[in-house]
């Protein structure tokens, strides 16, 4: 089974303190560290496990600048067979649809049985997976947390639905799946693993390689534009607990007790 996984480089939320810049146009990017979007890691792990079971290949692709090559290498150190970097200054300012269109063009250049994305990106809107499926006219399942290959044409996928329940579906391939965290335990990638793939060539595709132009996917084509970033005003009913960790914990326990949250 030939699998393509779309991945994204995002600021690592667990290792950064996200602040908005003074103009309110973006987050403060100085001092940020980046990593692979967490959901994408699960998708790549799942793809590798499928390949190891039934054979085939795993390709990882990302749309971004040259720094994004780092996330491709990380996924290749995990076990992906090849990486493709789509990079073009003209993509700058694209919206989700622009990303989806770019990825669709790349997908059509190859022949894949299965397309995977993370369910969402740390800084995104969980839209690209669905859009790709629609553009490719392929069946789509979102929030997949279980995957089983039934035969050459069919998969069984579990989807997380409300209340922590799982719904089971059969889906024919080729198809697009957006992968939820928890579907597996992604393996660890150490520095040694990354160094081992440091010299593997990663092709870079520009828009012209994909038969697209900036007018198709770039800022001009974007129908969704970011207008503002702001921290919401502290509203009624919200109470910020003060003090050191212990005092905060104590106050929180008190509140929970008084409202009957804990007994």
């Amino acid at each position, binding site marked *: 089974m030939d699998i393509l996984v779309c991945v994204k480089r995002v600021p690592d939320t667990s*290792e950064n303190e996200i602040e908005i810049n003074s103009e309110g146009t973006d987050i403060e990017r100085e001092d940020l560290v980046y990593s692979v979007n967490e959901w994408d890691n699960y998708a790549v792990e799942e793809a590798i496990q499928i390949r190891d079971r039934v054979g085939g290949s795993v390709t990882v692709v990302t749309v971004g600048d040259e720094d994004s090559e780092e996330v491709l290498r990380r996924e290749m150190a995990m076990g992906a067979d090849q990486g493709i970097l789509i990079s073009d200054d003209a993509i700058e300012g694209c919206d989700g649809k622009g990303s989806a269109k770019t990825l669709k063009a790349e997908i059509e250049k190859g022949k894949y049985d299965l397309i995977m994305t993370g369910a969402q990106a740390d800084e995104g809107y969980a839209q690209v997976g669905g859009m790709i499926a629609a553009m490719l006219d392929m069946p789509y399942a979102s929030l997949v947390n279980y995957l089983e290959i039934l035969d050459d044409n069919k998969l069984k996928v579990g989807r997380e639905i409300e209340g922590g329940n799982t719904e089971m579906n059969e889906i024919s391939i080729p198809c697009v799946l957006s992968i939820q965290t928890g579907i597996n335990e992604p393996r*660890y990638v150490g520095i*040694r693993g990354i160094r081992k793939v440091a010299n593997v060539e990663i092709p870079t595709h520009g828009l012209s390689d994909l038969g697209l132009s900036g007018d198709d996917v770039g800022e001009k084509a974007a129908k969704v534009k970011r207008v503002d970033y702001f921290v919401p005003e502290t509203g009624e009913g919200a109470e910020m607990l003060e003090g050191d960790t212990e005092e905060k914990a104590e106050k929180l326990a008190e509140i929970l007790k008084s409202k009957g949250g804990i007994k």
Partner: protein
Amino acid sequence: MEHVLISPANATILGIPAWILAVLIPVVGIGAFAYIIARRLIPLAKAESDPRFDRIPLRIKNVLKFWLAQYKQPRYMLAGVLHIVIFIGFLILSVRSISLVIVGFNEGFVMPGLSGALGDVYNFLKDYAATLVFLACIVAAVRRIFFKPERYKVPPEYGEDHTAEAVFVLGLIGALMVFESLFEASHVAAQLQEGMQAEFLPPLTLAWFFSKILGGASTAVLQPIHTSSYFLHDLIFFFFLCYLPFGKHFHVITSIFNVLFMKLDRGTIKPVRHGVSEEELDNLESFGVKYFEEFTWKNMLDFYTCVDCGRCSDNCPANAVGRPLSPRFLTLKSRDYMFERFPVLGDIQPKEPVVGKVFSEDEIWACTTCGACEEECPVLNEYINKIVDLRRGLIEEGNVPQSLQKPLGALEKRGNPYGMMEKKKLDWSKDLPEGTEVKVLDKNNSSDTLYFMDSATAFDERLQEIAKATTTLFNNLGTDFGVLGKAEKDSGHEVKRFGEEMLFQTLKEQNTEAINNSGVSNIITTDPHAYNALNKDYSGIPQAEHISQYLLRQIRNNQLKFNPVTDSELVFTYHDPCYLGRHNLLYDVPREVMDSIPGLNRVEMDRCRDSSFCCGGGGLMLFYESEEDMRMGQKRAQMAAEAGANVIVVACPYCLVNLEDGVKTSGMEGQIQVMDLTELVLQYMYVSS
């Protein structure tokens, strides 16, 4: 001397001259033994190299101390004394046994040098030796059969009980003593009956008792006893020799070599591969141990030498709190696997990954590398290097518990396991008292002394108190010091010990550069893990000191003086951090600092100094979630309470968090206080106004 009884060399058995048998038994026995040993050496020949032929005088000294003088044995008094008796007895009797074997075909043979007075002394000694060994075997067997000490138990997941093997061997040893004595006693009894000259049998020895019992027996009875006890001794002797390499009694042969080649440098970790420099690591095909052959030959010798005495697991804190780790079975499982894959008879089995087959991932991660097992082992087996090598293998395969992946990722990106931004490294210094300055060192801004904080002390809210106390102490004592600030990365002590060697190398390079850039001439740290890393894992930087050493020097120089402890209710105890105590032997320094405070009432916990009980581990171990029945910190807090202490003083940030946590979660909050040595010293420091 005339002999009444026919000696084995002249006897006939069923018409066949007995000397043929007396030659045949040793020839077959030695031949079989040589073959068995050759087979047992096969895995060692296939193993990874480990150059252990350096510092021979020290190694010989270790053999005299740990092997000949049985230095570790009395740590468990009864078992230890029994073992010493049997061991010394064996040494003495080995001469007798060898000459007995020769006497079977060379009548009247006497070991060279033992014909005169020395021989009389020897005979006197060996009769008592045999008797004491016999008694020791009986006591040991009674102990194993009836009293069943807890540490010999075999939990169901590790298979069958081992009592039968132990008692069988005690039986063999006992039988050797009995037949050796019977052989001699029957001869003496016959001589005396005929009124002829006989050897003197020392009173109350086995041989003496037997000679009394046999005193009335006729030659017709004594002759078969004499001949058969000789050949039974001979048979059992060679059977025992060949049986040794099939179980825990292999140590009889291997322990001397195991001690000779023991690890000499405390606190260090073996390189990924011996003979491969740090710069060449990238060229290595594989890291760590994934297949059995990737253990070193010394690791394998350890497995063979294990005595199954259970002392390691009895002291292992992970084992004590129900983590899935027992050092004893880590070794025994490995030994059994070796026996199975490299059998004495039959083909060598194909290689296969050891994790999943011999070891579980959980047991490999459960170890805090506290070193209690190694400290206790009477034959000086190692564990930490093996655990680290197994972890290296797991890391390379990507098999890392989810709970460790985040901190490892953060260490790679941010240089600390908390994922805190580098610029927050000195946030704690904002609350320092007026006038306390914390200088950030670099090329243009130097000091004599670098205070190396390490991640936990810089970022953990509670542990920042150690940083504050330390900087205040430096300030009060007029020590010119500085910190590295943003440029200081995690020391990587646990990164290395969790098997992520390349990440450790990266952190080490960054720190080495920053330290050398700062131009300091000495380093002080409050973190024993950093202390161990800087001194053992790093090179090319100034020697690091632990804060307790600095404080003691200030006390001795009369720079640091104390107000007395006035609260008579306070009972202090000192908890030895593993990386200050066992791995660096700093047991007395922190105690002397405490004892310099007038009126300080200090008690010791049962498990102190080199048998200290790990708090739960530091660095990455704080993030690891093991299956366990209780926390090590809780158990340790309990031990402090049992010692009657209400203040536990530690000298390590991780001990501080783990023990505070242990106290709180055991419901002893308010009854027991935990504090760092720096906090204690600052509290009682006399500052002239």
